[in-house]
């Protein structure tokens, strides 16, 4: 009884605290705009807000843009970063430590510092208004994910490599057959981070993309206004709910993947 209380009471308390602002988004999304500042709860549920949120922002079109961009970026960057992280964790070479220092240094450079020069670079290469900058970024890996994978792979027992090497496996095969399959949690965690970085980013798509091929985040920032340009807070909140929905589904999926991926312990055997 008390044990159950210890298990459930604190977690429930935090869950309620965390969910309150989100609960309030739902409530606000169902108010009429005129009720926004005046009444606490909606007198009747204003479902058309959701319809309006879809229509005003041309939601499906821009959601697809965001999905394509975030999805392809996350897929590529996770694979590349895992490979690079594996290299750092498991292969010795002169200059390795300096290079890893560089990864860490890049992690702490304020991204904002590169903002204008990066635009200049992509503009001069003629790559603005396309998704190429993200693909190139992805192919170069992400310092954050490289760091994550390197830390993760460093905890793997080294005997595994030795055994595999004795069997005649090359480094790429070892990576593909031993490291990658057992990196479930790190893959899931970094995939979510990388996906979200693009899905939620505002500054780069606003600067690099055109108003038709831009992402939902940019589109939504300006879409929810009445014909006079007045903000529609209730519709905005409906938009936020729709915006976050695919991410919840994505997490529900990745969640299972994390759990399934916990075979790390099996490595001890």
């Amino acid at each position, binding site marked *: 009884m008390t044990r159950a209380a210890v298990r459930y009471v604190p977690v429930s308390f935090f869950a309620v605290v965390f969910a309150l602002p989100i609960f309030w988004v739902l409530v606000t999304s169902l108010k009429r705009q005129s009720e926004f*500042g005046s009444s606490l709860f909606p007198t009747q549920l204003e479902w058309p807000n959701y319809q309006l949120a879809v229509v005003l922002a041309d939601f499906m079109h821009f959601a697809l843009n965001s999905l394509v961009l975030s999805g392809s970026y996350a897929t590529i960057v996770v694979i590349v970063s895992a490979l690079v992280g594996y290299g750092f964790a498991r292969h*010795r070479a002169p200059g*390795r*430590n*300096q*290079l*890893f*220092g*560089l*990864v*860490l*240094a*890049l992690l702490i*450079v304020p991204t904002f510092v590169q903002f*204008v020069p990066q*635009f*200049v*670079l992509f*503009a*001069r*290469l*003629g790559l603005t208004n396309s998704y190429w900058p993200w693909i190139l970024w992805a192919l170069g890996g992400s310092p954050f994910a490289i760091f994550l994978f390197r830390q993760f792979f*460093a905890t793997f027992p080294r005997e595994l490599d030795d055994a595999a090497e004795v069997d005649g496996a090359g480094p790429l095969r070892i990576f593909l057959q031993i490291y990658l399959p057992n990196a479930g949690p790190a893959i899931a965690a970094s995939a979510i981070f990388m996906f979200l970085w693009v899905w939620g980013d505002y500054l780069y798509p*606003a*600067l690099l993309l*055109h*108003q038709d091929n831009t992402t939902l985040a940019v589109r939504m920032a300006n879409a929810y206004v009445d014909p*006079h*340009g*007045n*903000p529609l*807070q209730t519709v905005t909140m409906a938009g936020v709910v729709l915006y976050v929905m695919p991410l919840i589904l994505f997490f529900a999926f990745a969640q299972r993947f994390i759990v399934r991926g916990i075979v790390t312990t099996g490595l001890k055997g």
Partner: protein
Amino acid sequence: MEELKLTTTRRKILIGAGALAAAAAAAPILAACQPTPKTGGSGKVTVMTDPNEFSDDDRKTLENATKLKIEVVKSDLTTLYAMFAAGNPPDVFRVQAAGLPQYISRKMVKNLQPYFAKSTLLKPDDLAPANNFYKWDGKQIGKGDLYGMVKDWSPDFTLFAYTKAFDDAGVKVPSDTTALTYDELRTLANKVNKKAGGKRVYWGFVHSNNDQWIDRTAMNMLAEKNQNLYSDDFSKLVISGNPEATKVIRYLYDLAADGVNETPIDPSPNWMGADFNEGQIAILQYGYWFSAMAESDKTKGKTVMLPAPTWAGVRRDPTMTATGWVISSQTKDPDAAWAVFEQYMGGKPAQDRAKSGWGVPGLKSLYPQMPQQTDFQKQVQKVLQGELSKSDFILQFNPYIGEETFSTSWKKNLEPALKGTISFDKFVQNIESEVNTAIADGKRIIGG
């Protein structure tokens, strides 16, 4: 493994930081390898503007009229700077008059005088007075060659009154034929200002586009006394050294301290236009363009337009935005850019804008096309006709600083001042020092 131990990692970061510096040294070489940008000359014109002011229909109309392809980029200062930095600025871009002296003095925009001289659509005699904001003689605006044109404009110091707020306070709505003085306006604003149970009912007097254009309001008030916020050569912001400027700044500060205006310590979640529509503002200062949206469900039949107030008895009601278009000096195909510019300013899109009532047309010949059907539109036109004769003025913006330098400093310091953390004198000093630093930077750059 020795090298995995964290003790050595600190050194790694230092080495990494060193490598960054080394990479930096290689930059000029890499930069030299980059291809030079190519634009224009391809029958394509890039226009950076606000999509709200440039519909897809406008684009198609212009494409048909000019046989050119038009690419629209959403107007945004960050993007504009970045495009200039990339050597690839839009051929045509939207500006407000306050930014113009800076662009002209840096030779970023093209002198359009030769084009205007040849144009049959845009004749110099037909240009509305607000276009004087686009004239530059090398030293100041208002005289000399034309560098652009307003898309439309409004005498911007007129007032809109919500009559219900006056009824509630038992105060008579001011006459729409005689102008208020700013002092009368302050007294009135305090009378109609209303809070109930800690919540806002009516703001008394909201102005200057939520303080974004506060320097323009101050400049127009000062101009009635032949004064400016800046020294004659624009090398200094002078408030504490100029009693007249101090009076104006004190007046605007007092409005904020009275609590009749939206301020950083008593903000509204909306812009002032929306609050007026919600029936939460008694007196609002906006130009003619606002009449197109002043009547909402709440304010319909309860809104009147009033003449611009006066500070020293010399009425002036120019535009304070003069939003319009200019052509980049770096455009590869100036003729194509002009063709689009000319059609937008004098062709069908210009007529459509005139009919919409969202501003006074940039060409006098289009004035009669402004809407005057409803009672409110008629009342507005009556007031507007009186204002047009007071609108042939310009505001002398400072060519050394960006258009939001003053207002950003004002907003930043207003918060501690109203909270009582700093005194009014310190408030003024801070603005002076911040803006003067910015002026000095600007002067150093363009060698003024």
